[in-house]
């Protein structure tokens, strides 16, 4: 059973947060587990929304926390830790997506089955909007997730995805138009 998510680190006093980060940098497993307990749910959601797969999202989470003690060398503690680790997770997830895209080893078995009863499907498969988001072309889905669901700016999305800001805006517009079409076929399409 998963432990109850704890308040985000950013809600703690700066010295408590700094101490915890120092302990992680020093390789203390209990400190890593503490941060995992606080952030794993929201980072899993982010990774799952981006990769569209529970297995890939868990791999992303695994890699983020496996490399966190060393990656924290680059965290200067001026910005909010929660935002920083979400950005790192987004980068790792996008790397996984790029690697998956270029892989020549994918087979049809790698894609979730319609009859799948896994956690993701039971959580979201019955929700029309989730199905509509899942059916978006990947370039549009990534921008929609990052902008609408994760609150990134177009400037940051353009940097993450290697596209221009204008392209990011256009993709978001196309994604929302497709979603509105899928959800409300009678909407006034512009």
């Amino acid at each position, binding site marked *: 059973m998963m432990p109850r998510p704890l308040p985000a680190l950013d809600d703690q006093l700066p010295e408590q947060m700094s101490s915890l980060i120092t302990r992680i940098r020093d390789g203390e497993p209990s400190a890593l587990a503490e941060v995992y307990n606080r952030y794993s749910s929201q980072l899993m959601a982010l990774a799952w929304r981006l990769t569209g797969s529970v297995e890939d999202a868990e791999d992303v989470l*695994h890699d983020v926390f496996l490399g966190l003690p060393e990656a924290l060398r680059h965290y200067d503690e001026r910005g909010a830790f929660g935002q920083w680790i979400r950005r790192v997770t987004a980068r790792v997830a996008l790397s996984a997506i790029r690697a998956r895209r270029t892989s020549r080893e994918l087979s049809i078995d790698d894609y979730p089955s319609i009859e799948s009863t896994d956690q993701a499907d039971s959580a979201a498969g019955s929700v029309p909007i989730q199905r509509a988001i899942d059916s978006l072309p990947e370039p549009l889905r990534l921008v929609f997730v990052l902008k609408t669901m994760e609150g990134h700016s177009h400037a940051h999305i353009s940097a993450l995805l290697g596209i221009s800001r204008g392209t990011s805006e256009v993709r978001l517009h196309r994604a929302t138009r497709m979603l509105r079409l899928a959800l409300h076929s009678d909407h006034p399409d512009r």
Partner: protein
Amino acid sequence: MMILHPSASTLQRFSDGDATAKEHQRLSAHFAECHRCRNIVGSLRDLSAQARALASPSPSPALIDRILADRAAGERIILPQRDDRPTRPFVDRRIAAGLLVAIGAAGYFAWASRSSFTTANDSPQRASVTGDSLDLPISTPGLFLSRLFLPSLASASEPSSLPPLKGVDGRRLSAGQYFFSRMEVTAPGVRAHTTGRGSLRVRASSDAGAPSWHVAHEWTLEPGPSGVRLETESLVVRQRDLRTITRSVHVSPYLRYSRLNILQNFSGDSVSGFMSAERNNKVTVRRPIARFLAPVAGPYMSEAFAPLLLSSVRLHPGWTGSLSLLGWAVVPEDIRYPVQLRVTGEERIRVPAGEFDCWRLEISRGALVHNYWVRKSDGLGIRTRIDRTRSAGAKGNHEIVLIREVK
């Protein structure tokens, strides 16, 4: 009267809160009169709210155990630190097609002429990267200690049987600059000629507000097949316990490269960083460094720090200790070199810098034993005797001796 509606992308920006103040004012005025656009914005906001409210799966309960077990087993990964994929500028399609052909051809030839070396900077990089053995950099340090043990790399990971250095107090060190020579020894006590010169400078510093020592080491080796080789190393160690914080090594030339760079950061039980190799002032090879440093083999020390190390402990007859000298950690065979130290006697030693009362130590790893003299007054290593080593650049017996010091 014809009404000019805002564009869809403008409505999207308004819905997302990204509209400029001027746009916001103009659109608000428009919405007061246009229920159609107002409804579209409402629909966009509903869509966003529904999307944000969607449930998502939780990670499996065993995931954190797997992460901690993998770290305990020494697995490391370098996470992408930047958004490395640059925004593509507009390129004419014909130019782009030509560029693609050229890049593809260049990429093919690069791939065909080299082994599989992961250079992607935007992907997590596993520590277990392997590659062309011709390119694998192994540290070939030029002074003091670890050169002695390079011929026996194969058993470099054996554990030490001695306890680690205890009672280390880095505050006993003091700032100063020391100059050493490496000399060929043709007969006992006869130092024939100089085969290398080195300097070591230590000064007080601070790292993230904590007192530290900054050590700069430079070593010029005798001309080899590719000329004079220059090795420089910069270290930051914590003042209290001499734990290494950062390390950078530059060797020029190194094999067929004009310059090799090693950058290491030490955190907890790990070292991470990058190696890069240059040709004609351009980096042609990059490799990640991410290695587990087993606590049982510690403390870990760079060879550049070796002459200063014993300044931090109180030696006495029969004193023993062990440590691991750090390699470059780019390949698994070059992470650490465990050595054992033992005080075997006391002697008065003459070197070019003067005559000093010293502790005589044996430095050993397995069957390899070498002699080392440490000045009693401050623990500075003033002489190393290297007998019959076959290491690169040292064909006979050699000594490294202190020739001058500036306090």
